[in-house]
């Protein structure tokens, strides 16, 4: 069995080109998921009737099932529905034109939303309720309290959790290789398909992911130190 060292480098050169797509598939879901999570949190804090149960089920389902299933459910489930809508409103486009990575981002946004709901929730749980009472006592509205008091403190405390989620989603993008998205792992499979040097290609992929993860971890350190500046004691 010949171990092809130079191939690791040439494989990595091909894979590095797909890092932007990979990062996009990791970051966009977290951004969209954040909005979804905010919606969930607002529903839970203000206990909006009927939606609380939906929120609980949504978070429970998307945290308990594997991400590959989320991707498959969206990838297989949305196009027929979208085609129906398109023909009903005579919009003229078909779901075939949507690239697979869009579906991956859609699915992962829902996944991220569930995890982010729990992360923000735990950040809020760590907060002192006296802050909220004080906010109402000086006349802030619900929306102002949420925006100016609850959310900033919850987010600051949750920075390590956010980075962990970011790293987790970077790794989750590798699942997109199963639906033939040309990201890092997918490219590794393609690149190794002529000379069957799969081991070398995947070692190269591992190195790339590892380096990206280490970069994200150091970013986490920087962010934590910056946030700690604002966390003085009392007066």
């Amino acid at each position, binding site marked *: *069995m010949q*171990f092809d060292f130079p191939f690791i480098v040439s494989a990595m050169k091909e894979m590095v080109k797909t890092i932007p797509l990979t990062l996009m598939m990791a970051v966009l879901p977290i951004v969209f998921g954040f909005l979804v999570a905010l919606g969930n949190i607002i529903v*839970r*804090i*203000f*206990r909006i009737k009927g939606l609380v149960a939906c929120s609980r089920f949504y978070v*429970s*389902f998307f945290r*308990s*099932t*594997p*991400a*590959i*299933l989320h991707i*498959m*459910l969206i990838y*297989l*489930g949305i196009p*027929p529905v979208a085609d129906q809508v398109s023909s009903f409103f005579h919009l003229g486009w078909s779901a075939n034109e949507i690239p697979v990575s869009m579906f991956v981002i859609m699915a992962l946004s829902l996944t991220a939303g569930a995890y982010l709901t729990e992360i923000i*929730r735990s950040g*809020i*749980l760590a*907060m002192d*309720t006296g802050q*909220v*009472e004080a906010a109402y006592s000086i006349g802030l509205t*619900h929306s102002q309290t949420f925006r100016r008091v*609850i959310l900033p403190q919850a987010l600051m405390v949750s920075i390590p959790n956010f980075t962990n989620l970011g*790293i987790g989603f*970077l*790794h*989750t*993008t*590798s*699942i997109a*290789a*199963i639906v033939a998205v040309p990201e890092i*792992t997918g490219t*590794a499979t393609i690149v190794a398909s002529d000379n069957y040097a*799969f*081991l070398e290609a*995947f*070692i190269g*992929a*591992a190195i790339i*992911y*590892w380096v990206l*993860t*280490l970069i994200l971890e150091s970013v986490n350190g920087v962010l934590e130190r910056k946030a700690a500046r604002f966390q003085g004691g009392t007066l």
Partner: protein
Amino acid sequence: MENAFDMNMIGDFVPTLTAYLPVTLYILTLSLLFGFVLGLFLALPRIYNIPIVNQLAKVYISFFRGTPIMVQLFIVFYGIPALTGLIGIDTSKMDPFYAAVATYALSNAAAAAEIIRAGVGSVDKGQTEAAYSIGLSGSQAFRRIVLPQALVQAFPNMGNMVISSLKDTSLAFSIGVMDMSGRGQTLITSSNHSLEVYIALSIVYYAVAVLFEWFFRVAEKRIKKNQTRIVTVFDMNIH
């Protein structure tokens, strides 16, 4: 492309898939057991700062937590035949089941090591000092005083690790393992109803995960019977 969506097929697929659930659980159990033991061996050098082993453990943990599980699966799957080929044993026809268990064990070990380390770190140092003061040796103090408390603190994280590992096992089909997801793939090719199969798979995974979560919640309550409850923003009446 496909036949029309058929709700009844989901009901037919669930029992077929559940028949392979034991394989998935077997992979999960084996990888958790080996992973926990290996994780303990990785955590100890880190906790006690043993010179070279500490750095090796650090690199190991960093690698297995810094790379996706799917890439790890492929590396182990292609790597085992490569390694054993060097000493002349041909394992290229090996059942991918073993590669999957090995990968998940190695990966879980890294996660377990971090959880154990955090758990040990959360035990009050006074406990160790008190143990030494009554004459216990280093390893006795660790085994009898620190580790039990550390494991109690780490229990919720362990529960999360188990469920996370369950979700990771859903990827084993990509190296050819015939577990629940693998059976799902064969169902898709034979029935041509992929969405129904994935919905059925989701139902089974969700049910199993909910059972696990319920178990860990109950177990955690019994282990932590005497802790006081904290009032949070979610308990306030905001209207």
